[in-house]
């Protein structure tokens, strides 16, 4: 059983934050809210998302699992204005999801969850640094780096207490340093890892500019990016595997 009403903007941002990595996913419809965990086919980027029942205008569920075509569902949700309400109801018999938006009825065929890529195990990461940073600063760094390169180094200089971003192109370079004053918080440990900008750009698209993002970094380790959605009634964690740094 699943029946819920949610503001379109919340549904859209939830779907977008998963949709930047995968085209289809499993959604757990738990009593306390929905949960999604997915990894892209190359096993490089992962998303772990929860949206609490309180984030919905109304919510009833008893622990089902559905598989959805995210691209399709994003299109449907995109039909609504951001403050419109979207009603969702699962038809257990036909395994279809009924979606209604201000009189518009859409019946979405679900995908057999078994046929969707298995949900990934969460990596076990021991990361030395924690940087709490505004979404807009991540956006600045990623946008600038993309002008010169297809990868980006994120690191922390423990001695100087700064978080830095470096991108080196064939001719041009980008460098950004943020210290404790520029950041919301910084727990500095020695850290440096190189990441693909393709992935980071996609994740960046889903990070609200005004979000407070907790970034955890290590030495040639995956990065974790954690932020709240739906005014704290939901949360997204991205994990991105590093590239091997050539010496």
């Amino acid at each position, binding site marked *: 059983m699943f029946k819920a009403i949610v503001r379109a903007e919340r549904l859209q941002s939830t779907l977008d934050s998963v949709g930047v990595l995968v085209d289809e996913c499993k959604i757990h419809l738990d009593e306390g809210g929905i949960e999604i965990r997915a990894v892209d*086919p*190359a096993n490089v980027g992962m998303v772990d998302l929860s949206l609490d029942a309180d984030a919905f205008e109304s919510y009833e569920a008893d622990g089902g699992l559905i598989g959805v075509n995210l691209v399709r569902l994003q299109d449907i949700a995109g039909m609504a204005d951001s403050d419109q309400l979207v009603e969702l109801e699962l038809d257990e018999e036909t395994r279809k999801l009924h979606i209604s938006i201000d009189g518009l009825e859409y019946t979405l065929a679900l995908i057999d969850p078994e046929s969707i890529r298995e949900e*990934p195990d*969460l990596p076990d990461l021991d990361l030395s640094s924690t940087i709490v940073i505004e979404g807009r600063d991540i956006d600045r760094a990623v946008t600038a780096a993309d002008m010169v390169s297809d990868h980006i180094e994120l690191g922390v200089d423990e001695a100087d207490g700064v978080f830095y971003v470096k991108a080196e192109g064939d001719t041009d370079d980008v460098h950004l340093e943020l210290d404790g004053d520029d950041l919301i918080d910084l727990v500095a440990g020695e850290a440096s890892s190189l990441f693909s900008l393709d992935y980071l750009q996609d994740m960046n698209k889903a990070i609200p500019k005004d979000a407070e993002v907790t970034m955890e970094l290590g030495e040639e*380790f*995956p990065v974790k990016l954690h932020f709240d959605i739906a005014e704290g009634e939901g949360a997204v964690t991205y994990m991105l*595997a590093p*590239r091997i740094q050539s010496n």
Partner: protein
Amino acid sequence: MGNADLRDLAAIEEVSFDELSGSTVAVDAHNWLYRYLTTTVKWTNDEAYTTADGTEVANLIGVVQGLPKFFEHDLTPIFVFDGAVTDLKDDEIEKRREQREQYEDDLEAARERGDSIAVARLESRTQRLTETIIETTRDLLGLLDVPVVDAPAEGEAQCAHMARQGVVDYAGTEDYDALLFGSPLTLRQLTSKGDPERMDLDATLARHDLTWEQLVDVAILCGTDFNDGISGIGPKTAVSLVTEHGDLSGALAARGEQIEHADRIQQLFLDPAVVETDPDTSIEPDVDAAREYVVDQWGVDPDEVDRGFERIEDALVQTGLDNWT
């Protein structure tokens, strides 16, 4: 037994590259290269694939375009090259040579007629693996740090042996003979656009209630690369004959037929010349050196290989999250 006959008997299913992630495959290098030469060069201008002095370089393009698929799906290839030709296969090779000469005559005629489509088709069929092709392929694989194994005889038999020994997870070849060489799991269509096929020996044997030895006998009755089959015996009949009479000699006796060197042919499949090997599969390519070799040394148009090298580099420097679980 022709490939179509063996396909009828074989247990084959499509698999996604995702499922193969993390495994190793011993690739029949000649078979793989040949596929690339006949598919990449097909319908295109021969001149783009040779140097000014006429040396063949299409194989270098094929390698650069073909390898990314393995690396991007974390499927580690080990290329196995043929050694000496097996004596009994001489007839088959002679036949292929005659066929090629025929194609070459046709090609000449098509050129004279100005039939460009026929020319393209025939050019692809007359592709041969010259010594230069083998040599430059090996040089390039070396620079890319892709493991290479030299088979004492048939590359395919060596691939199957490595799969049997568990040195690799799969043999990789288009040829259905891999089943006869006893490869437990074989990947086909590694060069095609879609998903590969997985051919399963145990499932094949279970389906027909045969042993591996009996499957070889069935193949010999229908005809293999090493012998002509008995006229009028197709795969179904061969399976019933071997099932009824137990083995090849029983089946032949019942039909009053003979196959020359039958026991030697059986041994070629069941106990072929192979070497024990356990190659290092951690791949650390020198992409810059490989590019220099292909573009500067062999004069291949960078446009043909840039994207391939980029994909190889990306696939090998990008780690996966599963390294941390």
